[in-house]
C-alpha cells in the first residue's frame, strides 16, 4: 500500500457458526445490509452456495490454464521442428551456433515429420498448463501467506475443523461495533476483532 498520509488501519471482525446454513444466512443478511467485498467465509471444505452468497466473480484460473496450454504446446512443436527440421545458416559462432538446428537423415524419414512431433507437443501443453493451474490458483489466492490477521484469533483454528467463520473488514471505527452486534444477532460465536497492521 503506497500511502502519503497514514490511513486508518483495517479491522477484521470475525465470528463463527456451528452450522453451515446459519453461516450462509448470516452472509446474505450482511450483504443485504450493504456489506459486499469486505465479506468472507471460512470453512474446512468448499461450502456449497458460498460463492453465490458472496457473489464472487468468475475465477481467472481457467483463462490462465488455457494460455499456458497454448504456450506449452506451441513451444513443444516449435522446439522439435526447429531442432530436427531447420538449419538457419545465419546462426553461427560459439553462442548462436548452438541454437542452430541440425538436419539429419534419420532412417530416411522426412526431416519435418509432424505426426512424430505430436506426443511431445501434447505433453508440454499439459505440463505447462498444470503449472499454470497451480501457480495461478496460488497467486490469485495470494498464497503463500503464512501470516494473516485472521490467524491472530486463536479460536479461528476451528475454521479448518468443524466451524464456519465469517469475516467482515472495515476501516470505520464507528462501524466496527455495529458490525459486532449485527454478527451477534445473526448467531455468531467467538466474535472477535483484529486490527490489521498498516503494512499489510
Amino acid at each position, binding site marked *: 500500500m503506497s500511502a502519503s498520509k497514514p490511513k486508518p488501519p483495517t479491522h477484521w471482525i470475525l465470528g463463527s457458526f456451528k452450522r453451515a446454513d446459519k453461516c450462509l444466512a448470516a452472509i446474505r443478511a450482511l450483504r443485504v445490509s450493504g456489506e459486499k467485498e469486505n465479506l468472507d467465509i471460512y470453512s474446512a471444505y468448499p461450502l456449497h452456495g458460498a460463492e453465490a452468497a458472496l457473489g464472487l466473480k468468475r475465477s481467472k484460473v481457467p483463462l490462465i490454464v488455457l494460455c499456458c496450454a497454448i504456450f506449452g504446446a506451441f513451444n513443444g512443436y516449435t522446439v522439435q521442428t526447429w531442432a530436427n527440421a531447420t538449419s538457419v545458416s545465419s546462426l553461427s559462432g560459439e553462442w548462436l551456433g548452438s541454437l542452430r538446428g*541440425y538436419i*539429419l*537423415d*534419420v*532412417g*530416411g*524419414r*522426412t526431416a519435418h*515429420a509432424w505426426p512424430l512431433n505430436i506426443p511431445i507437443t501434447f505433453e508440454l501443453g499439459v505440463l505447462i498448463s498444470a503449472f499454470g493451474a497451480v501457480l495461478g490458483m496460488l497467486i490469485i489466492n495470494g498464497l503463500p501467506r503464512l501470516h494473516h490477521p485472521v490467524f491472530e484469533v486463536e479460536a479461528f483454528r476451528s475454521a479448518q475443523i468443524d466451524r464456519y467463520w465469517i469475516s467482515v473488514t472495515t476501516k470505520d471505527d464507528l462501524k466496527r461495533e455495529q458490525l459486532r452486534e449485527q454478527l451477534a444477532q445473526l448467531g455468531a460465536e467467538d466474535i472477535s476483532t483484529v486490527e490489521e497492521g498498516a503494512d499489510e
Partner: protein
Amino acid sequence: MPQIDPTKPRFWRSVEDFTSGADRPKAAHGYPELVGREFPVGATEIDGATRRDFLKLVGLTAAGTMAAGCMRNPPERILPYVRQPADIRPGIPLHYATSTSLGGYGIGLLVTSREGRPIKVEGNPDHPASFGASGTFEQALAYGVYDPQRGKHVKRKGELSGWKSFKADVISRLEAAKADNGKKILFLDGPTASPFDGWLRKQVGKTLPEAKFVTFTSVDRDAVFDGTELAFGQRLETRFDFDKARVVLALDDDFLESGPDRLVHARDFARHRVPAPDGAEGAASLGGDDAKTRPSAGEWMNRLYVAECAYSVTGGQADHRLRVRGSDIICLAAALYARLVPDGAADVAALAAPYKDSKWVAAVAKDLSSRGAQAVVTVGTRQPAEVHALAAAINATLKSEVVEYGRPLLLDTKSGSSTLKDIVAQANAGQIDTLVITAWNPVYAAPSDIAFADALTKIPNVVYYGQFEDETSVHAHWFIPAAHDLESWGDSTSIDGTVAIQQPLIAPLFDGVQRGELFGAFAGMPDSTAHELLREAHSQTSADMTANGGFEPWWERVLQKGVLSPTPPDTITPTLQTAKIGERLRPFKFERIEGIEINYVVDNKVHDGRYGDNAWLQELPEPLTKVVWGNVGMISPAMAEKNGLAAEEIVKLTVDGRTIEVPLFVLPGHAEDSISLAIGYGRTGGEAIARGVGSNANALRTTSAPWFGSRATLAKTGKSDRLGITQEHWAMEGRPIALTAELADVKRKHLPMVEEQNGPQPSMMDEWPNTSPEGYRWAMAIDMAKCTGCNACILACESENNILIVGKDQVRRGREMHWLRVDRYFEEVDGSLADAKVVVQPMACVQCEKAPCEYVCPVNATVHSDEGLNDMVYNRCVGTRYCANNCPYKVRRFNYLNWHNSLQGTYEMKMNPDVTVRARGVMEKCTYCVQRIEQARIATRTENHGVGRVIRDGEVVTACQQSCASGAISFGSLHDPKSEVSKKHADERAYAVLWELNTRPRTRHLAKVRNPNPELA
C-alpha cells in the same frame, strides 16, 4: 595406451641385461613401459638408419599415436624420433610384403604397419598362393605377434638364462661333437620347404656332417607322397587347378579350407560355382590370372560330390554329399576304381564290395567319366596312401587336366609319427646327446602310444625352440623363445614353387630368437644375425640377381615385392603303375568296425593346437557347429536318438583303454555310428588362453589309427557343459532368408523365391535426396554361391575394426561382438536331418536406406551419411539398445561390459588407430569399413594440388572383401552403373534379405546355386 604401469610385467632382452641393468626402461626418465620394452640395446645400434633398426625404434611414437585407439584421454605426450627413419611418417600407414608358412608351405602376406606396429595382415597380391586373399590363420597372425602369453626368456632347466649363455653352451657342445661329426646331435623340425632352412641345414652340415634332421607334425601330408609313390613309383607333389574342373569328387578332402593352397582352391572353385563367368569377376579382381586355359566348350558351373564323415566346409558346398565313416572311404574309392579304371575291378573286388552296387557310386562314376579331362577325384590327407593311389589312378585314367604333379618341395616328405618312434628308439639306445626340437610341441602332438616325453628324459640335452612355454618346454633342458613370423627374417616356398621373403615388421617384442639365429649358432655362426644369414643364403642362391644389377638393388626389389621372380612350377607327367596298386590292394580285406568309430579332424581354428593361445581363433565360431572356445564330439541326430544322447551332454569317450571326457554336439549330416572330435584342444601347457580349453584328442590317437579306424565307447557321465555357441538355432523355419536355387532354374530364369524378395518398395514419405557431392552410394553384394563359410572375413573384420573378444562365458550369454557373422542353416532333406544340406550366409549390417535402428535412437547416435552409410557414432551413443532391438537383422553388438579391460600390455599395440575402440555401454556395428572409405576419399580429394578426383571402383576395399579368397563379397558405389557392385545388384540372383520390411538394405545377397546330378535327384 602405453602409460607407465607398475602392475605390468617388465621385459628384458636377456637375463644378462637383467643382471647388468643394461637398456632397461628408466622410469626416472619417465619413458612409457612400452617404449622401454621396445628400446634397442644401446645407442650404437641406432646409428645408420637401416630398416631393421628403426623397427626397434618405432615404439617411441606409440605414446603419441596409440591414443587414437582408445577412448581414454590422458595428458598426452608426443615423442618424436630423434632421427627420423627414411620411410616412416606418423599417421601414414605403411605396407610391407612378407610371408608365413603353415605345414611347410608358404603364403605371401602384405602387412599394414602404423608407426611400426603391424596392425593388419592381408595376402600379398603378387604372391600366387595368396593373390591378395588370406585365411583365418593369416589374419590371426596380427593377434599372435602381440600375444602377451608368449615365451619371454631363454630358460635353462626352468631357470632364467640368456641367449648369450645358450650360445656359449652350444659352442662348447660343438667342440665336443667335432669328435663324432655330431652324429649324436639330432634336429627335430617341423615340415618346411624354405630355401633358407635348406641353406641353414647345409651350413650345419658343414660343421656337423653327421647330424641328422628329421621332421614331425601331427597333421602330416605323407599319404600324398606315399600315394604317388604307390601309383607312379615316385614321391610327387600333387596340385589341383580347379579352374579347369567341372566335376569334382572329394573323398574326405576339405580342399577349400585346409591344405597349402586352400586359398587358390577356394578362388578357382568359386569362380565356377556360379552359372556364368561374369558373376565370377569378383575372384578375378583379386588378382587371379585369367590367362589360365579355360575349357572352351561345356558347362561353366562345376559340380561337387563329397564323401566324408563329419561336415566340413567343403562338404557344405557339395551338390551331393555321402555320409560315410572315414574307414569306408577306401571302399568307396575302390568301387570307383573298379568302375573307372580298366580291368582294375579284379584287384579291388574285396574292398569295393560294400559299394559295388551303390547308386551313388554309379552316378558319380558316370558323371566323372562323361566329363573326362575336366573331372577330378581329390583325397584328403587323413586318408591312407592306398586311397591316394586309387584316386591318382582314376585321375590318370580320366586324363584329368585338373591335377598336376611336381617334384616335392618339402625338404623332407616323411613327417609322420614314425619319426617320433625312431627318436624314442634312438633315445632309449642312448644314441642322442642333443635333441634340438624346432617342431611344434611334439610332446603334446605325439600319438598316445608313443611315450615321447619319457624318451626326452633319456636325452642329456634337449633344446626346445618354440613360441610358448608349453607341454614340450617343461621336458626340455633349454627353452628358447621363438620370434614370431612377423618378427623374423626368413623365406618360404609355396606349393607352386614360388619363393617369398619373410621380413620382420617389428623387433621381437619378447626378445624372441629367430630361426636363422638358432641354426646359425649350430652352424658355427653364433654372432651373425638372421638378416645377415638370409642375405648370405640368397646372395648364393639367387640367379636372376645379375640381371637386376647386382645383389643390393635386386634385394631391395625382392623386399618390396616380397616374392622372388617366380619360377614356373615344374610339372612331371608320371606313368601309372596299375599293377603295383593291384598288388598292394588285392590282399586288402575290409572288416567293418562294429559299434562306434572315432574320427579325428583337424580343427579349423587352432589347427593342430599351435594356435591354441590365439584368442581370436578360439572365439571364432567353428564353421559348421558354430561352437567357440573348445571342441565337441560330433554325432549324427539318429545316433543321438538311438543312444539317448543329447547335445551339451558330457560323455566319457574310451578308445582302447584311454579315456577323455567331451561334450557332445548333434551335427546334422554326420555319418552314423561314428563320433568326430577335433584335435588341438585340451592343452596343459603354459599358455593361459589355451590351457584347459576343450578335450585332448591326441590322448586317444594312435600311430596305427591316427585319424580313424579304432572303436570308441561312449559312457554317460550325467554332467553337461553349456557350450559357447554363436548360433543356437539351425533351421530357417521356412523363412525366405538364405535363398538357394538350382542351376537349371537359374538358367531358365525361374527364381520365384528371389523375385518375391525383390521389386518396388513404396514409401509414404518422400525420398531423401542424394546430397553426396560425388553422388557415391556405397553398397555391398554377397554371393552366397561363392561363400564357403570359412570365417576369414570375420577375423579380417575383427582385426580391422578393433573388435574385442569376450570369452566363453559371455558368448554363452549371447554377447559375442563379431560385427560380421556367418549364419549357417541346415535344410532338411525329405523331412530328415540325416542328410541335411547346408547353406551359409554372411550377415553384417546391411546399411538399410530406411534403417529401423535410426529413427528409434533418442540421441541421433546412429544416422545416415550423405552417401547412404548407416553411421554409428560411438561417442554419441548412450546405449539404450533400442536400435539393436529394432534391427531385424540383429547385426548390432553391444558392449555390455568393459571388454577393453581384457586387453593387456602388448595387445593394446594391435589396435587400429583409425577406428575408435568402443567403451562400455556403447553400441557398435559394421559401417562398411568407413575408415577405409574416408582414407580413400582424402587420398583422392587431395590429389593434383587439392583439386581432387572421384574414387574409382575398386579403390575402396572392405576388410572382409579383401580377405575373401572366393571373391564372394563385392563393394563399391551404386552411382556408377559399371561398378562391380552395381552389376551384382542387377544379377537375377540378387535379393534383399527381409525385403518385405522395406528396410531397403544396401547389401544385397545373391542366392546360392546348386548343381545337382539329375540321376541322384
